[in-house]
C-alpha cells in the first residue's frame, strides 16, 4: 500500500504544479525546497502549461512490473514551453511514429494500480498535439 506516497504528489501529478524560484525564476518540477541554481528557498507555485516538445524517447518492450500489459509503450523527456523538462509516457500514438521535436500535450491518465483491489494511480501522460 503506497497511499500516502502517491497522495502527497497530487499537485504535481494531477495539476502539473511546479515551483518558480522567487529570486532567479528557475522552474523546478517537482517542487523542492532549495533552488538548485541560486540556493534561494522561496518559490511560488506555477501550473505548467502541459505543452512541449519531445527531446528524446524510447519504446519500452520489456516493461517493469505493473506496466507489462501496456508494452510496447513510449516514454520520453519532454521540454515544456516554460523551459522545464519532464519525464512522461507518451500515449494515444503508435510509438513507432514518434520523432524528436514532436509537439506534445499533457492529458490526465491512469498510470498504474496497486493490484486489482488497491488504489489507482493517476497522473499526466503526454499525447501528440493533434488538437484533440
Amino acid at each position, binding site marked *: 500500500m503506497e497511499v500516502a506516497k502517491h497522495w502527497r504528489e497530487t499537485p504535481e501529478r494531477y495539476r502539473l504544479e511546479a515551483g518558480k524560484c522567487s529570486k532567479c525564476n528557475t522552474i523546478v518540477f517537482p517542487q523542492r525546497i532549495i533552488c538548485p541554481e541560486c540556493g534561494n528557498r522561496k518559490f511560488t507555485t506555477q501550473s505548467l502549461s502541459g505543452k512541449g516538445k519531445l527531446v528524446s524517447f524510447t519504446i519500452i518492450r520489456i516493461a517493469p512490473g505493473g*506496466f507489462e500489459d501496456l508494452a510496447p509503450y513510449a516514454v520520453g523527456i519532454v521540454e515544456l514551453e516554460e523551459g522545464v523538462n519532464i519525464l512522461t509516457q507518451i500515449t494515444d500514438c503508435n510509438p513507432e511514429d514518434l520523432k524528436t521535436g514532436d509537439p506534445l500535450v499533457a492529458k490526465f491518465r491512469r498510470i498504474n494500480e496497486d493490484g486489482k483491489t488497491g488504489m489507482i494511480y493517476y497522473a499526466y501522460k503526454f499525447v501528440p498535439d493533434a488538437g484533440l
Partner: protein
Amino acid sequence: MRDVAIIGIGMTRFGELWEMSLRDIAVEAALKCLDDAGTEHIDSVTIGCMSSGLFNQQEHLASLVTDYLGRRNTPAVRVESACASGGMAVRSAFMEVASGISDYAIAIGVEKMTDVDGNLATKALATAADGDYEAFHGINFPGLYALLANAHMEKYGTTREQLAEVAVKNHRNGALNPHSQFPREITTDTVLKSAMIADPLRLFDCSPITDGAAAVLITTVEEARKIGKHPLVVISGIGTATDTIALYQRKDILKMDAVQMAGKRALQMAGKTIHDVDFAEVHDCFTIAEIMVLEALGIVEPGQGGPATQNGHTALNGKFPVNPSGGLKSKGHPVGATGVAQICEAALQLRGQADKRQINNARTALTQNMGGSGGSCVIHILEAK
C-alpha cells in the same frame, strides 16, 4: 593522510550461483582476498551492496557478513550508492586506512540478485532512479539508457553497429576471464538480432542480472611493503561526484557531469592526466554507457566514443584498452560487487597477473563505477609501484 595500497584481491565467479546465499558469496570473496593478501589482519569491514533488502529481504548486512567471516565484534559498515556501492565501499576502506582509523580495511562488494525473479530484480534496480518521477512512469534502466542512446545517436551520429561493438569487444575480453558470467565471444549480429528491450537497446546491449562478490584488502604502503607478497599496487587517486538522479532534470543529458568531475578529481589527486593512464575498467551497464563514459573521462572527444570503439582504440591490444575484464557486459554485473571487481581487475593487471588478457606494461589504471543513470560516480586511480 597515509599512502594506501591494495594487498589482497578476491572474487567469486560471477553468474547464477544458485547454491550460494548472499552471506556465502560475500564470505567467499573475502576469504579469497585474505588468501591472496597472505594476512588475516582486518581492523574494519566495509560492505558495498545496493539492495539486499529488495533482493534478499536482508538488511543489517555489514554485521551479518562480518560475523560469518569469523570476525564477530569487528567494526563494520555498509555503504550504498546504487550500482556505485562497490566503488564507494573501497573509497570508505581507503579513508579508514588513510586516516589512520584502521591499518587493515577490507571492502567487500556483494549482490545476490537471483533470489527474486527477473521482474522483481528489475524493479529493485529501478529504485536507483527517481522513484516518484521516473520509475513511477514505467521507465526502467534499459529505458533511461535508451533515452541517452537515442540522444547520442541523434546528436553525434553514433550508429547502432558502434553500440554493438562495445558488447562484442567486452565479450572478447570476458572470454579470457575465468570469473565471467558469459565467457564467450559474440558477433555484431548477435547483438543486432537479439530481442529489443527499449529501442534502440537490445538484450545484448544490456549487462546481465548476476550473483557475485568481490573484495579488496587495503593497508598502508608501509605495511604492504613489509608483507611484499605481490608487486605493489597503490591507490593514488580517488574522485567522487554526484548529479541529479533524475535524468530528465539534467541540463544536457549527454553530459555525464558526475563522471567528468569524479575523473577530474581522481586524476588531480594522483597528479596525473588521462593521457598518463594505460587502461580503464568502466561501468558498461549498457553499451551506450561505455561510449559516454569514454567521452566524459576525456579518453576520446565528445561524440567519438562510437568510432573509437569501432576502430579498436579501446580493444585489449588497442591504444587505450577499456574493460579488459570483459566489463559488466560479459563478466556480469552484481551491482554492489561491480565497483570492487573493477579494482580487483585493475590490481591484477598492474601486478602483471592477468594471464591471457594481460595488458603489456600496464602501470596506471583508472576504474570508473557509477550509480543509476550517472547520479553518482566514483573513480579510482591505481598505480603499480
